[in-house]
């Protein structure tokens, strides 16, 4: 059983080692693609197992919980790992044509795989300190990816990314220390019971807020998001895409995990803060996007605004709202990574991501226009695409809970999202190219064209499938939300998954 849980972490690590050894030849990039495909297969096996059994857990090194490190997968963890596999493979294929040889020789593919391993580890661990370690694995490889190439712009963005993320890390670490001091355990399932017996609930709320800030920085919520729009538009497109898709969602995942499993002792206080945060995150993010004039910078601010919706689902803390949050997470990762990939192709054929310097894509590259429209409309929430259902569920949950103001905010932010998407559409696609260039997809070498467009098309089709057949996905999210709100099964599975220790 334990290998099912461990393979999504082991495969990318092994791939990283191989990719690093073969970094000077063309083998490295194919190893990366193969490894990502392996990760996707391993994650699907995990998913099948979790769908069958509900929650599965394994003790690493045969130390019984709560003393050893537990790997545990419930439906939320499993679906996040599957999505990591999907985006990981898509971006690995895209990177075949996107990442220059010089960056490959510096170890791009190895860093990329370590990043995937860190993300999967963070989704699968059941131990708080182990979560910290996975965050660090993720962080150090993302540092490397962000500044790989060493352009001045990248270094500038890198400084802000590195410093602010390190602060969040230290807050997280202090929170772990204090929580351990109060409860004497670091196993998340064990913490669920231990926090009920704490004799100083006030201090527990303080620690909860510390975790909120630490994960809030990672998730890029208001007012802690400034590192994201400062850095996400500077690295290679593949790096932007995987960051945009996965990294902030690890923060959101950790928030959801901690604030459904552990910090539920004072929901009225903590989740009200989260509700305000959600509202402001949505609004500031979308206003920032409306003010930008660069393809990737608009998209970066949209990440912030969309994070608000997921936090909204957590903050409302009703079954339906959590269904919305889970659905939104899955939908958003696919759509956002895809939009960045489209931005990369636009840059390749039109020469820039600065909207004033490109244009004419609709006339000469209609396929790319279509591939942009699908995720863009999905992000804005047009039926019948995946974003519509995600927003629909969340707003319905807000209305049912009596949160009319927050529902109105969510709807207005949706409108403003369309506004900034039309800005990209008008400038990059409808306006003629300012330099008179006629950007065509056929100007790309056929191999590159295949490597760039296949992942975009695949992700776009996935968005359409979720949008056209939302029923199984909503059912899945409902089951997952049910697990999150009733963590007894999770707790029991972890604590009883003790291996038979020979006496």
């Amino acid at each position: 059983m334990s290998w099912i849980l461990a393979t999504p972490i082991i495969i990318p690590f092994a791939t990283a080692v191989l990719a690093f050894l073969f970094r000077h030849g063309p083998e490295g990039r194919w190893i990366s693609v193969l490894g990502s495909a392996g990760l996707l297969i391993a994650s699907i096996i995990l998913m099948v197992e979790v769908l069958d059994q509900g929650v599965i857990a394994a003790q690493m090194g045969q130390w019984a919980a709560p003393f050893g490190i537990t790997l545990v997968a419930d439906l939320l963890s499993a679906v996040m790992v599957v999505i990591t596999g999907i985006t990981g493979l898509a971006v690995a294929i895209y990177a075949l044509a996107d990442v220059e040889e010089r960056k490959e020789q510096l170890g791009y593919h190895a860093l990329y795989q370590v990043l995937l391993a860190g993300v999967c580890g963070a989704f699968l661990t059941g131990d708080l300190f182990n979560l910290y370690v996975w965050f660090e694995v993720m962080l150090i490889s993302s540092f490397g990816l962000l500044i790989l190439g060493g352009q001045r712009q990248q270094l500038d963005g890198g400084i802000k990314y590195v410093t602010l993320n390190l602060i969040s890390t230290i807050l997280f670490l202090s929170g772990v220390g204090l929580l351990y001091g109060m409860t004497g355990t670091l196993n998340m399932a064990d913490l669920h019971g231990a926090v009920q017996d704490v004799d100083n609930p006030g201090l527990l709320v303080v620690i909860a807020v510390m975790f909120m800030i630490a994960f809030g920085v990672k998730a890029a919520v208001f007012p802690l998001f400034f590192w994201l729009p400062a850095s996400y538009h500077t690295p290679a497109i593949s790096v932007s895409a995987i960051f945009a898709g996965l990294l902030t969602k690890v923060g959101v995942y950790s928030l959801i995990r901690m604030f459904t499993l552990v910090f539920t002792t004072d929901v009225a206080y903590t989740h009200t803060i989260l509700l305000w945060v959600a509202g402001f995150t949505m609004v500031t993010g979308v206003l920032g996007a409306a003010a930008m004039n660069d393809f990737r910078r608009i998209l970066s601010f949209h990440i912030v605004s969309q994070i608000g919706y997921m936090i909204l689902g957590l903050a409302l803390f009703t079954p339906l709202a959590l269904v919305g949050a889970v659905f939104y997470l899955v939908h958003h990762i696919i759509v956002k990574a895809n939009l960045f990939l489209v931005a990369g192709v636009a840059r390749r054929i039109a020469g820039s991501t600065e909207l004033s310097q490109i244009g004419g894509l609709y006339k000469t590259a209609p396929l790319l226009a279509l591939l942009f429209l699908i995720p863009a409309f999905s992000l804005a929430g047009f039926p019948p695409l995946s974003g519509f259902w995600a927003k629909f569920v969340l707003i319905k949950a807000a209305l049912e809970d009596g949160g009319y103001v927050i529902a109105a905010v969510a709807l207005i932010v949706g409108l403003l999202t369309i506004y900034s998407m039309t800005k990209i559409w008008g400038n990059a696609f409808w306006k003629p190219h300012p330099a008179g260039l006629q950007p065509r997809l056929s100007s790309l070498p056929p191999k590159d064209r295949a490597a760039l467009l296949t992942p975009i098309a695949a992700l776009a089709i996935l968005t359409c499938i979720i949008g056209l057949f939302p029923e199984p996905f909503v059912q899945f999210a409902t089951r997952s939300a049910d697990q999150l709100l009733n963590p007894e099964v999770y707790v029991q599975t972890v604590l009883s998954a003790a291996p038979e220790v020979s006496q």
Partner: protein
Amino acid sequence: MELLVALMVGVLVAASVHLMLARNVLRFIFGLVLISNAANLTIFVSGRLTPESPPLIPEGATTPVADAANALPQALVLTAIVIGFGLFAFALTLVYRTYQNLGTLNSDEMRLAEPLESKPSAAKQVAEKQYIARDTTS
């Protein structure tokens, strides 16, 4: 003993916040080093300090003596120190490279990735003119 360490953590945090509020990125990094040490001490002290009782199992017994020192926080701190060391090595190199490339350590002057958009750039103006020209001719 706990009180003493707690006070020390407080002083360290105060000093590091002071350092981190500086515009100089290098001072900021030094602040980070200090505050990470404060975090490590927090973990250390939250395991309760029990001087002069090492977590050793007496001969013949299977469990340590009743009020032996807690070994787990020390393991955690050790891990955190190692990770922190790697991160700061990276951060210092990054700051050095940035200084070499940008010629400044003042964070206010680091606006390359996010240029101030008070006036439209030259390229943008040209583009707009062309756009308008095209519009009027057609």
